[in-house]
């Protein structure tokens, strides 16, 4: 039965440590991201308009002009690319709220809390993932209107992978955001890095034949591995698998996890440091 907490009860509750408190803090920050997004009509409109621009216009043009001679269905290849690109783009953009919170001084409220800086960053990434998944669903609908179909099993597999993709996207974005103190600069940096990732990762242009410096860059960015793992799951058991998938899925999954952990650790360290070292 509920009772009013006394001062000592409250202090004891605050002293609860470990996983439960960190999880509660992460969920709280995640929920804030969702609530703020739902309260912002502009954010919702952008999330739903983005798939029309990216998938309908960019994808549609590419599909009509590049589809020949590839040995696989370019529409499906590009749809998967756009889905992962959307997750990366919207999660990274959402993460700039960490910089915005500095402007409104709200970051002080989070930084003074007795929780891990990782909980703050992961909560913010997952909060941003909400709108990213809304955009991803919008992309699937636009794809359907364009006549590009994915099976229910394939869609569920993509949906199941999406939290990991968002975490990978957020961790990569943290590398930049962790050391930027100005929102305008953060937005510009995120846009630049997203354009580079979209071109270099193979989201819309196959990279199987890339060589030299481009091949090196392809393999340095996490979106390449996220796309490859998703395509490995979607194309599993099909004749196109060898033409579309670059790496062994186990290796890809290991690369995603390793890069995510490394980027998250470096980005969170830089973010915490930039807040307290002035």
């Amino acid at each position, binding site marked *: 039965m*509920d*009772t*009013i*907490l006394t*001062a*000592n009860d*409250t*202090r004891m*509750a*605050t*002293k*609860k440590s470990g996983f*439960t*408190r960190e999880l*509660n*803090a992460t*969920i*709280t*920050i995640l*929920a*804030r991201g969702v*609530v*703020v997004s739902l*309260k*912002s009509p502009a954010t919702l409109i952008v999330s739903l308009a983005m798939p029309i621009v990216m998938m309908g216009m960019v994808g549609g043009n590419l599909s009509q002009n590049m589809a020949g001679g590839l040995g696989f269905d370019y529409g499906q290849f590009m749809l998967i690319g756009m889905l992962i690109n959307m997750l990366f783009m919207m999660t990274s953009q959402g993460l700039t709220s960490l910089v915005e*919170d500095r402007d*409104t*001084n*709200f970051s*002080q*409220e*989070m*930084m*003074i*809390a*007795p*929780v*891990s800086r990782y909980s703050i960053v992961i909560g913010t990434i997952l909060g941003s993932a909400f709108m990213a998944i809304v955009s991803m669903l919008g992309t699937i609908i636009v794809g359907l209107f364009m006549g590009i179909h994915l099976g229910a099993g394939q869609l569920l597999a993509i949906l199941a992978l999406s939290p990991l993709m968002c975490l990978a996207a957020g961790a990569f974005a943290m590398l930049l955001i962790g050391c930027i103190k100005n929102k305008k600069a953060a937005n510009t940096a995120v846009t630049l890095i997203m354009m580079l990732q979209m071109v270099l990762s193979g989201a819309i242009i196959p990279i199987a034949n890339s060589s030299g410096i481009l091949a090196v860059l392809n393999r340095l960015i996490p979106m390449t591995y996220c796309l490859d793992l998703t395509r490995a799951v979607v194309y599993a058991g099909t004749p196109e698998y060898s033409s579309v998938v670059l790496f062994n899925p186990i290796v890809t999954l290991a690369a995603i996890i390793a890069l995510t952990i490394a980027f998250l650790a470096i980005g969170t360290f830089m973010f915490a440091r930039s*807040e*307290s*070292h*002035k």
Partner: protein
Amino acid sequence: MQNILEVTNLTKRYDKAKTPAVDNISFSVKEGEFFAFLGPNGAGKTTTISILTTTLSKTSGEVKIAGFDAEKQAKEVRENVGIIFQKPSLDPDLSAEENIRFHACLYGVYGYRPTFKWMTKAYRERVMELAEIVGIADAMFKPIKKLSGGMQRKLEIIRSLIHTPKILFLDEPTQGLDAVSRRSLWDYLNDVRREYGTTVFLTTHYIDEAESVDNVCIINHGKIAACCSPEELKKTLEYDPTPKICLPTLEDAYIQYLTKIEREAV
């Protein structure tokens, strides 16, 4: 009474700054004490509070709060402190209650639930009780953007107390508030001190707010200029500024003391 706060030889020099913002200061605060940290603009008050509350790193020295080292045991220190920042730090996109819920859940006092109604009865009653006391119960479900500066300040006070900290840092808490709001805030803060034995660490430019403190430290140009009780500081007055009306106030002593040390420095 034990010391709840101990500062030893604390120095902070900002990146690229020629002189330290806080220069080798030492002082202590006892448990349950009402302590004022006064000084003119740019003296180093906010820098010191930021270091004490673990949001800013120090250059050198030692800070202990509730027995924990502020740098090595930052999480334990954060569990024991509450703060009202100089600049409002509310999320303008959330409602007043959502801001409180965010804080309470972040501190692990309550498990997060997506609506006020779904939160525990204990949370709901505590929030509404605090809101009634500071007089903002009607505004609890309004967006922050629609609250006046005074109401936002009151909300920050509720938020800072929801986890019942042992030591509450107030960095110019009544800045921009009207006289009635200031009075009601101080009435409530005094009740909190009495009921929970909360230590209060205050910085303010309204010196009358510090009239009833147990001890006062004056910081000037990053250095501690004086650390004593208000009565001791008043004894340093060279003249009685209001001889026929009332006894000298702390504000009289503070202004004269600062003027004197500035004059001596020149």
